[in-house]
């Protein structure tokens, strides 16, 4: 064998050895792969890989497989050299020794020595017979195969126990891309609704159907977008049949995802629930176009947020926008449905609708997905109301005296304009809708208001005992039918004969007189009873006090009836009785009723108050009784004068008509003229009869007047006035009218003579009244002077006693008692008299505020002994009028700055009395006022200890000497000149108890008449005894922030401590109301009108003519002036309207008085504003409070 062959054989052997190694590697690699599959499958059974895990696992398995393959290929591809194979063979066959290698090496050496050659030539005879197969490691091969078989068995073995589950697991491991789910005991069969989109806010039911092992739990995992995920346990599987589990979401507001988990059911899927918004209105614009006749402007509204105001007959243009496309939109009104049209987009719709009635409307929208949305329209329907008719006069049931013409004053108003107003004459018992005879017609012309005073000029038969009218008004509304009209109630005038009128009047007056007498008697009795109870205060039983209170209630009720009596039986004392009715009559009831429940210490005071009030009531009623008698007579005289005046006017008219006819050729008098003359003749008869009957009625009260009336009747008869008229009538009937003129003229002259005589008597009566009034005033003055004198003497006596060294206590005590009694009486009397007020001028006011007033406290050590100073230490300083100040009062120069000031350490012991300027001397323009600073310093200290008697003695008199500004330094004290600089300090003394003028910042509480200039500040302790604190000017604006503790602020009626204007409520100021007097200004005109209305009211009252409406008119005129000042046009219009109505009513009232006509029904306007008190109805402990409340309310009327 040569070496080459050997080499080839060795190489073949090497390949064989590599193959053996590769086989072993393959077996071991596959075993590893199988073990991996087994292991991962086993884990899948427990862990249930997800997709990613499965891929990862598969990659691992593939990695193992790859590694095995690589390992096998590597072993297979290994190349052994011949010598390496020889070495391996020599190792496996030791008998070869090294011969095989040596042979190969020696043979490779071409220059081998002989030995080597010999060795080579010898060859390797052992080679031939070698069994190379023995070289294979059979044990290793067997182990590798065993490993492979074991791994395979391990893979197959779980299949025997787990069956398909194992196969699925193996399959899921080896094929990660299959969707085969792991085998479980429980399966989720279905889930509803799965992925879904639901209506936002709607409920949703989640359902799943499962089947599986009994006892397996079922859960719901809910993961809303707006909160943390939540798991709900739905229950457990009860059996092997499919079972359904549900969960209800009450409201789905946001998106969410959810899944059901059931037992071991693998990989429960998440489902998504999305929401969609409900169909909704995004915008709803409404354009309202009112009908032209209303003259209203078109309006635009956001109908979703605003009320849409729709006048009747308007066209409503609706534009709606939605969040979703719509399929249909309709306006539903009642049962009617009107579709709207789609606009530019499916989400925008619009439509126009006529609005003729106020049926509620709603919009109903339907979306393509079936959603519906409704929106009620907030419509405020303004119907065209029927005209409003207000009858200003007559009120109640008027009774006309003979010949008096019916007079109707009315106002008709309509919201959009009047078409026609008519007065129809109807029968008294006609139905409401029945048409009457139109006696007067006015064209409305589209005006909003028509005010008319109409007098029936037609002659009516004297046999008619009643005339009835009705006002009919039609507006310009085009939507109604012909019957659309407003009708007033029937206005009935009773027209009895003069005798009947007189009789009725007598009856009414008699009844009123009896009622008044009864009230007076009742009050007298109750007063006596109350006095008796007062004397026996402790023992008086509660029931008797209650009886007294009930009696007062009765008296009040009867007084109310009297006040409402249309004949005005209380005459010119009606107003004062009304005041008592509202005041004392109401107050005394709770005082009496609550007396038993009052504390023992308070009873005496309450009883005294009750007696005082009852005395006042009795006094007023007694005075009213006297006035009542006079009132009746004067009213009769007024009626007769009015009747005579009317007859004169009519006779004059007849004469003029006759003369006119006489000038015409062949003209004859018509029947109406003849009848008019006849009627006048009959009126003369009535007049005579009336004079005689009134004379007999007046005999008891006024004999002089009775005689006069009788004389008038006699004169009328003797002069044959009626005869003249009858002759004139005959001449008119028989021949040419000229023949009647002399008789008519004669009758007219005689009537005028009668009237002149009557007027003279009336004028004399008035003069006597005025003289009596002046006399009474003089008397009052004398009495006051006497009271002052008594007080002065009493004080002097007391001083004299006090000065005695040997003080006689008894005498002092007696004097003190007397003095106290006297002082009490004086206080009562003097409080009623506003002394010193006359010296105050009408101040200018400036709405100028010191914004910040701050307080500086100064320590004061009172001068020793000054606290013991007495009245004797007071020195007086009297100052004459200082003319030099007048010029300075008219102008405010540059403001003078303040210097340092200090407090006094001794109390004021100087009494200053200054001669005041007369009002006429004061500057016409009032006090000049300079500008104020924005902040001011107030200086206060502890109040000085002071003898009260001395303090009163040192009170200064009222001063009206003022300066716009002054240099203030040194001590803070009251001086003899008032300053308007608002620089004064509060100081450390209480203010003098007097009215003080000038401007001031907040200081110590006291009485002041001037202007408060501080915008804020602290009111310090001061004079506790203040009746009121008021500004002269009720129209001043502003408000002070009062910071003081426990201080009284009594100011009312305007000014900076109480804003607003005081006309009725509160106090109007110390002088008459200040209105603008600027010539030509609207306010000035209003003020003038109001003053004239007031003056006329006063005059009418003096004549016993009721003209309450005039007072109301003045009130409304002032209110309208205020409205002008505020620029409130709406209020201005309303007040002017009310003022006009009041003036019309006043005219009618005065006309009635002139003719002697009267109403048979109570006057409704007299007490209609009265707030009926309820204190007696309140629990005892609250009666006082409630009484105060009602008093305040009633006093505002």
């Amino acid at each position, binding site marked *: 064998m040569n070496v080459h062959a050997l080499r080839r054989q060795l190489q073949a052997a090497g390949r064989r050895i590599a193959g053996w190694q590769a086989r072993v590697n393959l077996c071991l690699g596959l075993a590893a792969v199988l073990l991996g599959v087994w292991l991962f499958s086993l884990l899948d059974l427990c862990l249930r890989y997800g997709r990613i895990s499965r891929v990862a696992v598969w990659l691992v398995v593939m990695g193992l497989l790859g590694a095995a393959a690589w390992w096998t290929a590597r072993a297979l591809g290994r190349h052994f050299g011949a010598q390496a194979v020889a070495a391996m063979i020599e190792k496996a066959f030791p008998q070869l020794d090294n011969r095989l290698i040596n042979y190969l090496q020696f043979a490779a050496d071409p220059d081998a020595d002989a030995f080597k050659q010999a060795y080579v030539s010898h060859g390797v005879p052992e080679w031939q017979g070698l069994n190379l197969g023995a070289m294979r490691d059979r044990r290793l091969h067997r182990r590798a195969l065993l490993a492979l078989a074991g791994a395979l068995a391990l893979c197959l073995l779980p299949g025997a126990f787990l069956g398909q589950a194992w196969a699925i697991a193996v399959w899921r491991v080896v094929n990660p891309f299959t969707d085969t789910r792991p085998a479980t005991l429980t399966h989720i069969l279905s889930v509803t609704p799965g992925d879904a989109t639901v209506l936002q806010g709607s409920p949703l039911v989640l359902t799943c159907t499962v089947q599986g092992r009994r006892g397996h739990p079922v859960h719901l995992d809910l993961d809303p977008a707006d909160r943390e995920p939540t798991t709900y346990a739905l229950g457990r599987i009860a059996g092997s049949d499919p079972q359904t589990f549900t969960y209800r979401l009450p409201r789905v507001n946001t998106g969410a995802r959810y899944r059901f988990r059931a037992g071991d059911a693998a990989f429960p899927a998440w489902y998504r629930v999305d929401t969609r918004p409900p169909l909704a209105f995004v915008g709803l614009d409404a354009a309202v176009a009112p009908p032209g006749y209303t003259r209203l402007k078109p309006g635009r509204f956001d109908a979703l947020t605003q009320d849409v105001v729709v006048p009747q007959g308007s066209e409503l243009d609706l534009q709606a926008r939605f969040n979703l496309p719509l399929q249909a939109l309709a306006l539903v009104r009642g049962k009617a449905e009107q579709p709207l049209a789609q606009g530019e987009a499916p989400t925008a719709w619009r439509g126009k609708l006529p609005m003729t009635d106020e049926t509620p409307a709603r919009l109903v929208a339907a979306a393509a997905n079936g959603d519906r949305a409704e929106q009620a329209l907030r419509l405020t329907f303004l119907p065209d109301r029927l005209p409003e008719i207000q009858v200003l006069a007559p009120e109640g049931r008027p009774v006309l005296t003979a010949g008096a013409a019916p007079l109707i004053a009315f106002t008709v108003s309509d919201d959009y304009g009047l078409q026609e107003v008519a007065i129809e004459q109807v029968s008294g018992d006609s139905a409401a809708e029945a048409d009457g005879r139109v006696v007067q017609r006015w064209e409305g012309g589209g005006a909003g208001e028509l005010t008319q005073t109409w007098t029936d000029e037609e002659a009516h038969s004297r046999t008619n005992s009643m005339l009835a009218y009705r006002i009919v008004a039609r507006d310009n509304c085009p939507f109604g039918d012909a019957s659309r009209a407003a009708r007033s109630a029937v206005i009935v005038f009773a027209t009895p004969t003069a005798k009947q009128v007189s009789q009725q009047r007598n009856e009414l007056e008699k009844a009123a007189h009896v009622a008044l007498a009864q009230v007076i008697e009742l009050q007298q009795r109750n007063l006596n009873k109350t006095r008796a109870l007062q004397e026996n205060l402790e023992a008086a039983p509660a029931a008797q006090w209650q009886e007294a209170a009930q009696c007062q209630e009765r008296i009040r009720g009867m007084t109310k009836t009297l006040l409402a009596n249309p004949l005005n039986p209380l005459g010119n004392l009606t107003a004062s009785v009304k005041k008592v009715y509202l005041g004392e009559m109401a107050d005394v009831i709770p005082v009496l009723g609550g007396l038993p429940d009052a504390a023992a210490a308070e009873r005496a005071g309450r009883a005294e108050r009750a007696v005082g009030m009852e005395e006042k009531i009795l006094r007023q009623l007694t005075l009213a009784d006297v006035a009542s008698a006079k009132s009746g007579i004067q009213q009769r005289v007024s009626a007769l004068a009015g009747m005579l005046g009317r007859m004169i006017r009519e006779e004059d008219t007849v004469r003029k008509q006759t003369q006119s006819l006489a000038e015409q050729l062949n003209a004859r008098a018509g029947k109406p003229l003849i009848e008019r003359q006849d009627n006048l003749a009959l009126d003369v008869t009535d007049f005579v009869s009336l004079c005689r009957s009134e004379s007999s009625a007046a005999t008891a009260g006024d004999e002089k007047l009775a005689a006069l009336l009788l004389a008038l009747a006699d004169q009328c008869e003797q002069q044959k006035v009626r005869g003249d008229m009858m002759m004139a009538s005959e001449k008119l009937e028989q021949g040419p009218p000229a023949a009647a003129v002399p008789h008519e003229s004669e009758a007219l002259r005689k009537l005028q003579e009668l009237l002149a005589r009557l007027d003279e008597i009336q004028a004399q009566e008035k003069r006597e009244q005025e003289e009596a009034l002046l006399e009474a005033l003089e008397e009052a003055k004398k009495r006051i002077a006497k009271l002052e004198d008594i007080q002065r003497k009493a004080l002097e006596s007391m001083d004299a006693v006090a000065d005695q060294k040997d003080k006689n206590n008894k005498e002092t005590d007696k004097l003190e008692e007397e003095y106290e009694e006297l002082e009490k009486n004086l206080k009562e009397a003097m409080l009623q008299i506003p002394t010193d007020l006359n010296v105050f001028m009408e101040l200018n006011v400036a709405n100028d505020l010191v914004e910040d007033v701050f307080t500086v406290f100064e320590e004061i050590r009172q001068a020793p002994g000054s606290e013991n100073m007495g009245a004797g230490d007071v020195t007086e300083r009297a100052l004459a009028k200082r003319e030099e100040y007048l010029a300075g009062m008219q102008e405010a120069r540059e403001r003078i700055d303040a210097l340092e000031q*200090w407090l006094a350490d001794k109390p004021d012991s100087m009494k200053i009395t200054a001669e005041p300027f007369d009002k006429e001397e004061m500057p016409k323009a009032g006090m000049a006022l300079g500008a104020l600073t924005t902040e001011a310093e107030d200086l206060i200290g502890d109040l000085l200890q002071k003898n*009260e008697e001395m303090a009163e003695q040192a009170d200064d008199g009222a001063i009206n000497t003022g300066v716009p500004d002054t240099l203030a330094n040194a001590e803070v004290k009251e001086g003899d000149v008032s300053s308007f600089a608002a620089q004064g300090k509060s100081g450390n003394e209480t203010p003098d108890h007097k009215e003080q003028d000038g401007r001031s910042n907040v200081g110590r509480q006291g009485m002041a008449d001037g202007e408060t200039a501080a915008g804020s500040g602290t009111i310090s302790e001061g004079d506790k005894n203040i009746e009121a604190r008021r500004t002269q000017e009720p129209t001043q604006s502003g408000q002070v922030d009062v910071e003081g503790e426990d201080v009284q602020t009594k100011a009312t009626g305007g000014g900076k401590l109480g804003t607003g204007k005081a006309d009725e409520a509160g106090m109007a100021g110390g002088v008459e109301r200040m209105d603008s007097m600027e010539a030509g200004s609207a306010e000035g005109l209003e003020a003038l009108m109001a003053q004239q209305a007031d003056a006329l009211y006063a005059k009418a009252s003096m004549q016993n003519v009721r003209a309450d409406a005039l007072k109301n008119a003045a009130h409304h005129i002032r209110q309208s002036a205020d409205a002008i000042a505020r620029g409130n046009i709406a209020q201005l219009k309303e007040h002017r309207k009310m003022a006009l109505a009041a003036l019309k009513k006043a005219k009618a009232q005065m006309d009635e008085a002139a003719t002697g006509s009267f109403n048979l029904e109570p006057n409704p306007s007299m007490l209609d504003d009265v707030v009926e008190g309820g204190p007696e109805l309140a629990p005892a402990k609250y009666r006082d409070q409630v009484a105060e409340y009602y008093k305040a309310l009633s006093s505002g009327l």
Partner: protein
Amino acid sequence: MKLPNCTWFLLVLLAAAAPAAPVRRLGAAEPSNLCYNGSFDSTNAPLDGWTTDYTWQGNSHYMGNHTRISQQPEHAGHKRVLHMAVSAETKVESRAIPIELGSRYRCELELAGNVDPHIYFTGYKWEPGVHPYANPHLGDLRRIYKSEFRNHKVSGLSGGWRRVSFEFPLENLSELAMKSLKEVRFVTVFIIAVDGSAGDLFVDNVKVTKLSAPPAAPARKTTRKESSR
């Protein structure tokens, strides 16, 4: 090393003096002067800390106030004194001194001249809206308190320098005074010359000290005396 004799002596002296030093500190405490530049010799400016210029008040009476006040190098043996040349109402105030509520303060000063000034403590609080800061300008403070003045009116100064003193607040404060006082945060020494004819006023050595004991007397309520009848 040997120390010299004098060194031993000094060491003994120091040892003996050591315990004496604290005793002297405690026993001889001088109350500090709260009034800045009360001797009118500040190196910043002679009248540093004293308010003489009141033009910020806008009050016409005090527009020229600062022109009437100056430092005078010497007057009647006192060097560097405040001089008020009074020709109209003239006033001067020390720097605002923060006070401790409940404590009492004493002011001592020396006066000379021929006018009769009023001198008292004036109490201030912060003007509304002003943020507190150190050494405030009087324009940022609001005056709300004046200590008693009647006994601080100094008369008869023509005889040369005169030392006066007064205290604040009163010993027995009323409720109203207490109410006002509790708002006070600073006081100044307020010197004002008003009445009398023109003249000169010299002020020196103004010293404000806090008294050790705060007032302990109960509050007194002012009552009005009843009528003697």
